[in-house]
């Protein structure tokens, strides 16, 4: 009789499989019992698969698929709450609105945004950004002026780069002076895709 005999009683593979099945039940029961603070889900679209998270206060983040998902969850567990579960059901509303937006049938989001992950300055910048409508563009300088800091165009750029809810808070509508497409946290290709979708840029001819 050795430790190896004991380990053989439950192989890691068997345990993993059973843990996955049992974890599904835990998720459902936790949602039903109101024990969940953050629900995470996936949304498909023309800019890749998005990971979205909602809390009791609203949509808290939207992440492009080039970010490490496990790391994101770990980071938000620290910032928000460790009571995070993956749930398609609990993120349904976000999925519906984003899917309509990608299909071109929705031009404004009705989702409430949970602003807890935004720094105070970013909140001001992102609030001004939210007022730039579908298919419109504004420059960093214009946003800086609108929030009363006309010389802060660069800080505006940094705040937009920290936007935890891209697409829904439309930081892709903010461009450089003269309409140049400059930085975007999700990459310039995605910024372009979103602006073409909204008709703010001419559709690309193949």
């Amino acid at each position, binding site marked *: 009789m050795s430790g190896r005999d*004991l380990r053989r*009683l439950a192989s890691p593979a068997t345990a993993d499989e*059973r843990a996955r099945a*049992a974890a599904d*039940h*835990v998720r459902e029961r936790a949602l039903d019992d109101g*024990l969940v603070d953050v629900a995470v889900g996936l949304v498909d679209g023309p800019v890749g698969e998005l990971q979205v998270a909602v809390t009791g206060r609203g949509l808290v983040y939207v992440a492009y698929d080039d970010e490490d998902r496990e790391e994101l969850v770990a980071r938000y567990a620290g910032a928000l709450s*460790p009571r995070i579960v993956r749930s398609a059901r609990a993120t349904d509303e976000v999925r519906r609105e984003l899917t309509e937006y990608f299909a071109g049938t929705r031009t404004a989001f009705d989702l409430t945004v949970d602003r807890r992950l935004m720094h105070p300055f970013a909140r001001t910048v992102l609030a001004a950004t939210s007022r730039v409508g579908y298919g419109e563009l504004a420059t960093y300088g214009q946003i800086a002026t609108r929030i009363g800091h006309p010389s802060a165009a660069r800080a505006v750029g940094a705040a937009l780069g920290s936007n935890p809810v891209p697409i829904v808070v439309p930081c892709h509508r903010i461009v450089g002076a003269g309409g140049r497409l400059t930085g975007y946290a999700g990459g310039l290709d995605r910024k372009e895709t979103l602006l073409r979708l909204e008709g703010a840029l001419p559709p690309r001819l193949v």
Partner: protein
Amino acid sequence: MVMRFLLVAVGPTDADDVFQESFLAALRAYPRCDDPRRLDRWALKIASRKAIDHHRATARRPLPTDALPERATGGPPEVDDELWAEVAALPPKQRVAVVHRHVLDRPYAEIASIMGTSEEAARANVAAGMRSLRGRLR
């Protein structure tokens, strides 16, 4: 980690139930969790306590159900049947300590912290458990 612990610490029949109860309890109690990012560690601690409670509860049941359902879950050869029966017969704290040490390979300091005992007590529980397993299985 928690499931592997429970499969041996409470047996395959009840592992799923205790797993669910442990994580739900961890979610309920998380504000008291030492490191909220490690919900699994926290759940393992709760699972250890539940495993011990579970044995006390089943021990009070009139029918000797301990070994039979575990054997009935199929797969393992007869040698394991014998081992299962002996593991199930260990006193709860020894069984839990033995599983932490020899199935999950945890250091004694961690076992002590998970089980809320001193490190010496953790060592003593593991040693006593292994001694009776070795004594009965040759």
